[in-house]
């Protein structure tokens, strides 16, 4: 479990996060949602240590990441996997070499076993046939799947996904969402997904944190989100005319139920 306590982040010109308290649970897909510029990415960057929070604490199963020294952080980071918005695969390495990279760097396994583990991960994301290709030869969805395989190769306890569906078509987005959800349950990982894709929210959102202008505005599940009375959340969730109509018909349907 990851617990955030009174987390704030201030840049010289702007305060982005204002005292956020939140818990992200094991074996669940935890979502951080919010409008562009609300502070989602800053929050995730603080969680993984790419940014230092101004105040507050981040507890990884009780271990305070903020007060750790460099060595302790490096060790904890080996328990993390991250899927970046742009996949961040290493251009000069093949897909197989990309997935093997964390194993080559930190695993005591032999070359044969490392390769076997990487191929298992690629098989899990249905990309075994593309193992010898280079990232530039892959489609956006395939790159995301390769990045997932790399992120899970060291069997991390914590998986972070920064807008995993950005730039993907709705069908491929569903495949990626399903894959992340299945891997989370299989490995009992604490997965945190930073998204504003409503399909993801409704499909795999088991614990959703809504951030509004750097403040924690709402937290709940995907089933609770539809019946929430939080006006800011509703404005965000039902921003399009289509979704407003959908909500209206959902409410009408509920009224007609005996």
């Amino acid at each position, binding site marked *: 479990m990851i617990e955030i306590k009174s987390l704030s982040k201030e840049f010289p010109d702007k305060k982005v996060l204002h005292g956020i308290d939140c818990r992200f649970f094991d074996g669940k897909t935890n979502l951080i949602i919010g409008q562009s510029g609300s502070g989602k990415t800053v929050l995730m960057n603080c969680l*993984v*240590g*790419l940014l230092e929070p101004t105040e507050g604490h981040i507890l990884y199963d009780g271990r305070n990441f903020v007060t750790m020294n460099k060595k302790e952080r*490096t*060790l904890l*980071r*080996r328990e*993390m996997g*991250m899927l*970046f*918005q*742009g996949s*961040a*695969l*290493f*251009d*000069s390495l093949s897909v197989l070499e990309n997935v093997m*990279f*964390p194993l*080559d*760097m*930190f695993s005591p396994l032999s070359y044969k076993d490392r390769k076997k583990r990487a191929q298992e991960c690629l098989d899990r994301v249905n990309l075994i046939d593309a193992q010898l290709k280079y990232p530039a030869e892959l489609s956006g969805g395939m790159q995301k799947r390769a990045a997932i395989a790399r992120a899970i190769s*060291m069997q991390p306890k914590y998986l*972070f996904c920064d807008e995993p569906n950005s730039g993907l078509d709705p069908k491929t987005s569903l495949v990626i969402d399903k894959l992340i959800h299945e891997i989370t349950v299989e490995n009992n990982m604490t997965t945190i997904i930073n998204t504003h894709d409503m399909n993801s929210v409704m499909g795999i959102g088991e614990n959703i944190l809504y951030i509004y202008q750097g403040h924690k505005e709402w937290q709940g599940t995907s089933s609770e989100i539809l019946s929430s009375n939080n006006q800011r959340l509703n404005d965000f969730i039902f921003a399009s005319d289509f979704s407003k109509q959908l909500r209206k018909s959902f409410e009408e349907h509920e009224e007609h139920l005996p």
Partner: protein
Amino acid sequence: MGRTFQRPERMRMFFKKYYSEIYQLGINSIGIVLLISFFIGAVICIQIKINVQSAWMPLWVSGFTTREILLLEFSSSIMCLILAGKVGSNIASELGTMRVTQQIDALEIMGVNSASYLILPKIAALVTMIPFLVTFSVSAGMVGAYATAYLGHIITPADLTAGMQHDFTQWYFWMGVIKSVFFAFIIASVSSFYGYFVKGGSIEVGKASTNAVVSSSVLILFSDIFLTQILS
């Protein structure tokens, strides 16, 4: 800087990267070094013979001057200025692109010391390869000078050989090698600095690449003055 020179997490990975950088930064530069040195060697010989040598000078002056220019300045300093353009922009744009596409962030989150993993092999590889490049440059320059003798008939091969062998000081060669090692360190570290700390997008990567070349070149020119004075 401190993080760059920390002990690599896995020596196996360091050497893998080191060999690939030797190929990318060193082996891939041999062609341009040979080509430029050949023509510059030939041109120096022609210029000295036609514009400097006169009746009251010994016949070996052209060969002697060509050798001294190649050994003392061209194959170390000028060749490193040229390499600053080729290798420096390569390093800065590679690291800059890795930064803006979050590949460096990915390394950091994996727990890898990205500065040590990416920069140290580049510095080590260029410092290792530069003495060879200097040697190739001197050799190609001399071959170019001989081409003017055998193909252009500007000077007789005997006069050129006499000049090349006249009053040879071995230290001049080592001076060029020592200077080039310093310059290689400047090229790799300055270019890595500009590439590694890029913020923004493709425009910033382009700017970093330009800044890397300009800064490396200026530093090479300044340090050349001091190194020449110290080593002479």
